């Protein structure tokens, strides 16, 4: 299946109640949503749990998705809402044990790069969430500012300024590594 399946084909499959749409949705959105959820939650394990909930919601709301004007924005909105619900639930239940799997990894077999990945993960976790979202989508998912603005429902200027402020903070936080 083509990852870049046009929106209208996917929406047609959803409208026709075609079970093949399940796989199409997975192929189309799984990687991007997983990256986005890791950026929001700063946890791979939590992102896996929320990703499942997101796909269940997508399937439950497929009739609306079939009519959505911007399919990407709708799907990301579901992911965003589910991630925030998860965060608020976690705040209410602080005693729940969290599994800390690295959500930023280095190519295998490089010890130094593993350390760097851990450092980058810690530094990214210090950024405010809106700035982290934009930086992760831009750098790790190669999205343009236009795409990010459409997905998050923001103006391009807002996205660009979030990116710039985030980079300024990273410059300060990565001071030693840069020099």
């Amino acid at each position: 299946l083509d990852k870049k399946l046009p929106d209208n084909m996917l929406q047609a499959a959803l409208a026709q109640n075609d079970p093949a749409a399940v796989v199409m949705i997975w192929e189309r959105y799984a990687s991007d949503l997983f990256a986005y959820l890791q950026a929001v939650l700063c946890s791979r394990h939590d992102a896996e749990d929320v990703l499942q909930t997101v796909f269940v919601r997508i399937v439950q709301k497929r009739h609306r998705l079939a009519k959505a004007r911007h399919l990407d924005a709708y799907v990301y909105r579901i992911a965003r809402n589910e991630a925030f619900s998860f965060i608020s639930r976690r705040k209410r239940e602080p005693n729940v044990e969290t599994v800390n799997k690295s959500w930023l990894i280095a190519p295998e077999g490089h010890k130094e790069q593993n350390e760097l990945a851990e450092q980058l993960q810690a530094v990214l976790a210090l950024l405010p969430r809106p700035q982290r979202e934009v930086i992760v989508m831009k750098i790790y998912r190669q999205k343009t500012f236009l795409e990010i603005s459409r997905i998050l429902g923001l103006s391009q200027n807002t996205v660009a300024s979030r990116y710039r402020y985030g980079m300024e903070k990273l410059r300060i936080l990565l001071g030693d590594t840069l020099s």
Partner: protein
Amino acid sequence: MNENDENKQIENILRKAHLPEPSIELKERITSVIKKVWNQSSQEIPWQIPVRRLITSTAAAVLIISIANFYSNQALESWHPGETQVTREQLPDFEILPDIHYRSFVRHPISSHRKSFTPDASALRNYVERMRKILNEKHQNVSPNGQVFDEGRSRLFPIQPGPDYYS
């Protein structure tokens, strides 16, 4: 080094790490779950969704109104008004009017306004009683020029002067 170069340097450092893709186990787990959800929700026809919502909201509205009525009734039951005094006013019998020549003209407005115009009989009785008392007292008193008022005669009419009154 300008800002763009620094940004590119940071981007290069960030790209040395990468975000993990969803694992095959995760894919299998999630696709099996969503297939189940898909099959469950496929039995539901799209038009049923708004109808079901309408029914749910109607039921919720009925429930809220019933609860409000219930508590309102409870509140009214527990509320005791003060004792009310019931007085009965006897309406004057206008059928027995004095035989006057304009009787026919008077009867019509009285009968048409009978319900709205109800004279306060007790107040009238009190007033008459008070007036009678005053008159009695006055009759018993001696007049300023030494004359005594006879019982039952109005003080408005002076005592009939005698034949030598004007002499």
